[in-house]
């Protein structure tokens, strides 16, 4: 049990609903599933929760080939075979060849840890189902050594998903859920303020204006998100771009400078340039 409440950190702005979801999950010691557009700080949340609550963090990044078993443990049969060849004494104890996975590490942590299961939707469709028991009871069985591993402290499990695959109902029922919606302008100002406290007000205003305009362009494959905006502002500051260059009224320079940081996709850049070109033509007429 923890008495501390998560209220965001000096480098992470948490909205009220996000705080509530995280605190509920922490209090009830259940997993929380975080969804949202890429780049809205899903993974960052786990780091910040761990920092704010002063807990160790265990990160498990999921790939398309990741199996649920790998999070628990691996049995290194090849090493054992090799040792038997060399006549090593270690070979008689199978436990020497059990390699702990991230979930196991989190389970045996001395204090309540934060376990991040990142991008769970990348894995095979059966992956979440294979973890049901482990996340529910916070225990699993090691067949090779006939040992039951039980969590000393139920970890705070934070799971992120990009919605590439639908997750099974049975899995969802066991989690709290939060969808990080794209921040509105006020929240965005707070976020930028946290990252670049000394940013000139005028530059911030113009940058945000330009950013939301780019986001509003219909048909973009990947809309720029918070992390892209932060990168872009960093570039603007580093390159010392004057505020005037961002003014959209100047139709001759309608493409925002360094827009490569915002648009990550060739088609999007192309589309954007075309639209700006069209716009310019109608304006000059």
């Amino acid at each position: 049990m923890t008495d501390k409440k998560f209220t965001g950190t000096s480098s992470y702005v948490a909205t009220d609903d996000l705080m509530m979801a995280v605190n509920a999950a922490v209090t009830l010691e259940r997993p929380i599933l975080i969804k949202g557009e890429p780049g809205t700080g899903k993974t960052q949340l786990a780091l910040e929760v761990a920092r704010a609550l002063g807990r160790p963090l265990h990160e498990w990044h999921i790939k398309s080939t990741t199996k649920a078993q790998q999070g628990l443990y691996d049995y290194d049969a090849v090493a054992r075979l090799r040792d038997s060849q060399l006549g090593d004494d270690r070979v008689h104890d199978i436990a020497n060849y059990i390699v702990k996975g991230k979930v196991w590490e989190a389970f045996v942590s001395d204090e309540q840890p934060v376990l991040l299961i990142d991008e769970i939707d990348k894995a095979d469709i059966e992956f979440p189902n294979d973890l049901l028991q482990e996340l529910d009871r916070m225990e699993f069985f090691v067949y090779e050594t006939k040992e039951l591993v039980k969590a000393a402290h139920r970890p705070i499990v934070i799971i992120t998903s990009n919605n590439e695959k639908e997750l099974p109902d049975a899995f969802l029922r066991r989690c709290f859920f939060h969808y990080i919606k794209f921040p509105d302008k006020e929240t965005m100002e707070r976020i930028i303020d946290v990252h670049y406290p000394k940013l000139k007000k005028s530059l911030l205003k113009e940058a945000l204006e330009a950013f939301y305009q780019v986001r509003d362009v219909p048909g973009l494959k990947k809309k720029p998100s918070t992390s892209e905006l932060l990168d872009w502002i960093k570039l603007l500051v580093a390159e010392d771009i004057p505020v005037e260059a961002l003014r959209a009224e100047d139709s001759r320079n309608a493409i925002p400078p360094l827009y490569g940081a915002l648009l990550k996709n060739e088609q999007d850049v192309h589309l954007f340039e075309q639209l700006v070109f069209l716009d310019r033509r109608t304006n000059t007429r």
Partner: protein
Amino acid sequence: MLTKFFFMLREGGMKPSITELLTLLEAMKQGVAGYSVDDFYYLSRSCLVKDESKFDRFDQIFAAHFQGIEEAFNALVGEVPDDWLRKQAELLLTDEERQQIEAMGGFDALMEALRERLEEQEGRHEGGNRWIGTAGTSPFGAYGYNPEGVRIGQQGSRHRRATKVWDRREYRNLDDSVELGTRNIKIALRKLRKFAREGAADQLDLEDTIDKTARNAGLLDIRMVPERHNAVKVLLCLDIGGSMDDHVRICEELFSATRTEFKHLEYFYFHNFVYESLWKDNRRRHAERIPTAEITHKYGPDYKLIFVGDATMSPYEIVYAGGSVEHWNEEPGAVWIKRLLSAYPKAIWLNPEPELRWDYTPSVKITRELMDDRMFPLTLSGLDDGIKSLH
């Protein structure tokens, strides 16, 4: 205490479970939500709703419940979309009624009769069974029912078998980002998996290693094999537009599921029936067509062919040259499907129409015969049966 709210959510079409309600109650008991309505709103949403697309619905039900505006709730549930009502009216015709309405004359006679009647008739007409108008059983006009009818001036096709579509309709590509409900389909499709080892050797072959080590007088000889991949090859041909409008959602689900399941998947669109060319991009369907002969040439016979379509159209569209509703086809569709079937012996037709209706539609019968009875309903069990016959 929250049971009323809970059941209101369920009535409103959301599916919170008892365990989720208990979680919410437990969280409240632990004092997570404090004493403000806002907190409670965030907490209950986090506990009970697991899909951001349902947030809006939840918000409305929450507002209705906690501000005591019960009428608002009724209004929400009672708000039946116009489209749905209209479709219901269409379904009122029973199958017997449909069957009773006999097709009249042949193809040529039909066109001739239409021309004559167009000349005879002046002014608007509705109902009845002779004049061209709406909602009647005459073979001419829109929003009515006659199996061999000619559709005139109707937005979006309704019954399936007008022999010439005179409204120019726009179609849209099936959206493969739709993920809703695809899980079940994916699981069904798994049965079609065929594993083969291809690519880089990165997995330990335990049996071979033991074998080779033993032969090597006990010195370790590690053997590796490539990982197994789903090696099944699929050609997916989707009917799009027209009578398929009703089934767009399930087709999108199927399409989305197949896209992620198979490494070798090629998809093509057709309208009503396959002819000498198909297309890949529905927006440029008139500009970029791919000759069917080229497809059979390019993809080998190890591909499995899956048609998805309701096969509901005028029989002329299958058996006559020039029967297509969109263009002049030199050879009838039946010839083309026979060519495709001889190129791909493993083939099935998935039909989103309910199986019970198949017998009432002549074109479905013809298609089924052409497919050697390998037509299956586009349901999970139908998909299962179909996949079995593909093996």
